[in-house]
C-alpha cells in the first residue's frame, strides 16, 4: 500500500518543487528527456512506493547523458488506486495507459486544472 502522506514523500516532493521553481534556471534546461528527470521523479514520488521511486529516478538520471538517445520516456507504475471523486476531464491529473500486465504508463493530462 502506498502511504500517501509520509514525511519522506512530502519532503522529496517539496524538494523537487523547489528545484523545478528555481534551480532549473541554472541547470540550463539540460534534460534530454520528456518528461524531464525532475518531472519524472515527481510523478514517481507521487505514485510509487518510495524505494521504487528512488530506483527509477536514479536510473533515469544515469541514462540522461549523451550516450543515450533521450526523447520521450514516460514513467511506468505498478499499483494504481483509483478513487476519483469527480471524473470531468479537467479533474483528471494523469492518464494511465496499460503497458504490460499490471503496469501502466502514466501520462500527464494537459487539461488538468487542479
Amino acid at each position, binding site marked *: 500500500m502506498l502511504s500517501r502522506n509520509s514525511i519522506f514523500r512530502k519532503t522529496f516532493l517539496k524538494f523537487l518543487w523547489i528545484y523545478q521553481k*528555481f534551480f532549473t534556471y541554472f541547470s540550463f534546461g539540460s534534460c534530454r528527456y520528456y518528461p524531464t528527470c525532475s518531472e519524472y521523479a515527481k510523478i514517481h514520488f507521487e505514485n510509487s512506493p518510495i524505494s521504487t521511486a528512488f530506483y527509477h529516478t536514479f536510473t533515469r*538520471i544515469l541514462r540522461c547523458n549523451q550516450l543515450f538517445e533521450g526523447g520521450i520516456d514516460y514513467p511506468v507504475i505498478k499499483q494504481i488506486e483509483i478513487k476519483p471523486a469527480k471524473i470531468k476531464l479537467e479533474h483528471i491529473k494523469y492518464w494511465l495507459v496499460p503497458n504490460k500486465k499490471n503496469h501502466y504508463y502514466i501520462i500527464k493530462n494537459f487539461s488538468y486544472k487542479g
Partner: protein
Amino acid sequence: MSPNQRLMVAVVLSIVFFSAYTAMFPPQQPVDTKNDIEQQAKVEQEIKTTKTVEKVTGHEISKSQKVESRDSNIVTTIKADDFILKLDTLGRIASKELLDERFRDSEDLHAQIIPDKGAKPLFIRFADESLNKEALSVPYVATIKEATIKDEPIKVTLTQKLSNLTVTKNLTFYKDGHYDISIKMSQNKRYFVYIGHRPEVSKKLMAAAGVLVYTADNVAHIIEDGDADNRETFRDVLVASAFDQYTATIFYNLDKDITVIVDGDSEKNPVLYFDSLGDVTFKGYIGPKEYKTLKAIDSVLTNAIEFGWFTFAAKPLFAVLLWLHDHIGNWGWAIIALTLLVRLVLYPLTYKGMMSMQKLKEISPKVKELQEKYKGDPQRMNAAVMEMYKKHGANPLGGCLPMLLQIPVFFAIYRVLLNAVELQGAPWILWVNDLSRMDTTYILPILMGVSMYFQQRMTPTNFTDPMQEKVMRFLPVIFTFFFVTFPSGLVLYWFVNNLFSILQQFIVNKQFQNAKDLKEHIEKKKKSEK
C-alpha cells in the same frame, strides 16, 4: 509565481549569497573571548573512575597569562631553518613561528601556529586540585636556553620540582617540525596532557577547522568549531590533531590504551587533551599540513590532512594534482593539465553531444514552427519538440548526468584549493601569484566571464522558453560575480575549461561545415553533369 517573478527571486537569492560570501570572505580571526576564565570554569572534567565532576582548571592559567607578554616567561628558544619554537615556564610550547615566506598572517607577520590565548600544547594539568595549584606557581627549569637545529636533533629536558612530585619532560626536536617526548612523574599521579586549542593562522569560510581524531579503525572523527557540545572520548588513537585551514598541532604514536578527550569550551570550540597516569612517551608535530613533509616523518600523519566532509572526492583529486605537479613543477599548469584530463575523460560524451547539436541547426525551422503552433502551452510544446528531435536523431541537450557530475569535480577542486597548504602562495604566471586566494586584479574572473559568453555564443541552443533564454544570456555576468571571490585556482580551472570547450566546439563546427560543403559540392557536380 510568473516566470518573471521567479527570475527575480533567483537573482535576488544569488545576490544575497554573493554579498554574504564577500562579507565573510576576508578571514576574520575570531575575536578571542574563548578564554574568559569565568566561562571556562563551566567546562567540566569527568573523572572516569568516580564520575565526580570538577572544573577544568587548565584554563585558569589564562588569568596569569593575561598580564604576561609572549616572551617574558620563555625558558628555551629553539631555532631551525623553517621555524622558531619557544618553551615557557609552564612547560608548554608557548609559540611556534613559521619562517617560510608563504605563511604570513593578516598583519603580514610570520605565522604563529600556537594561538596567543587558549590552552597550549604540552600543558599538564593534574586531577588533584591542590597539586594543580602548586604546579601553576612553580616554574619549569630547562637544560638549555637557546639552540639552533642544524642536522642533528636537539634534546631539551624540562623539570618542575613540586613539594612532593617531580615532573620531567624529555624533548627531542627535529628539523622537520616533529618532536619526541617522554613525560616522567616521580610518583603515580593522574594528569592530563593538552594539545589545546586549534591554531588560528588562517580560516576561510567553508574551510574546516577544529579537532581531528584518527582512530585505528581508519575513521577520522572531526569536531569542528562550535560543534563540541559534549565531551567525547576516544581509544586506540593513531593521530590526534587540532587544526585550522593549513596548519595543525598533532600528537601521534600514543599508547593504545590512552584515552583522548575532546571537550568543548564556552563557545563549544573543541579543546583536545589526553588522560594519563604515570610515565608516558609519544610524538608530536606542529606545522603546516604539507603532504610530503608529513609523509616523510610518518605516513600515519597524512591522515591529518582533511578536506571537510568532501574528503572522499577531494583526496583522490589532490593525489592526481600532486602527481601532475611533480612532473610539471607549477601548480597553475598542474591545474590546467587537470582540466585537460577531466575533459579527456568526458570527451566521448561531449563530442557526441556536440555532433547532435549540429543536426539540430538543420531542423531548427521545423522546431520554430512547432513553437508557434503551441505558443501558450509549454508542456505540450516540449512533448512535440522532443518527438521532433527523436525523429531526426538529434538531441541538443547534454543531459542531467554530465551536469550533476561536474558539480562534485568542481567542489573537490574547491576543497583542495581551500585546504591544501601546498597551494598556499602557489603562483601561476604573470599576475597570478597565489592560486589559493581571490584574484585582486579581477582579471581572471573577467576572462572567465568573457570565455563563458563566447562559449555560449558558439553553442547552438534551442530554448522553448524565452525567459530561459534571457537568463542564459545573463548567466556569464552572474557567474563572473560569483567567481570574483573564489580562489584564483578555481577560476583558472573554469576559465580553461571554457577555453577547451570553445576549442572543441570550433573543431566540431568546422568538421560539420566541411562535410556539408563537400556534400553540396558533390550535388552541384551531379547537377552540372546532367
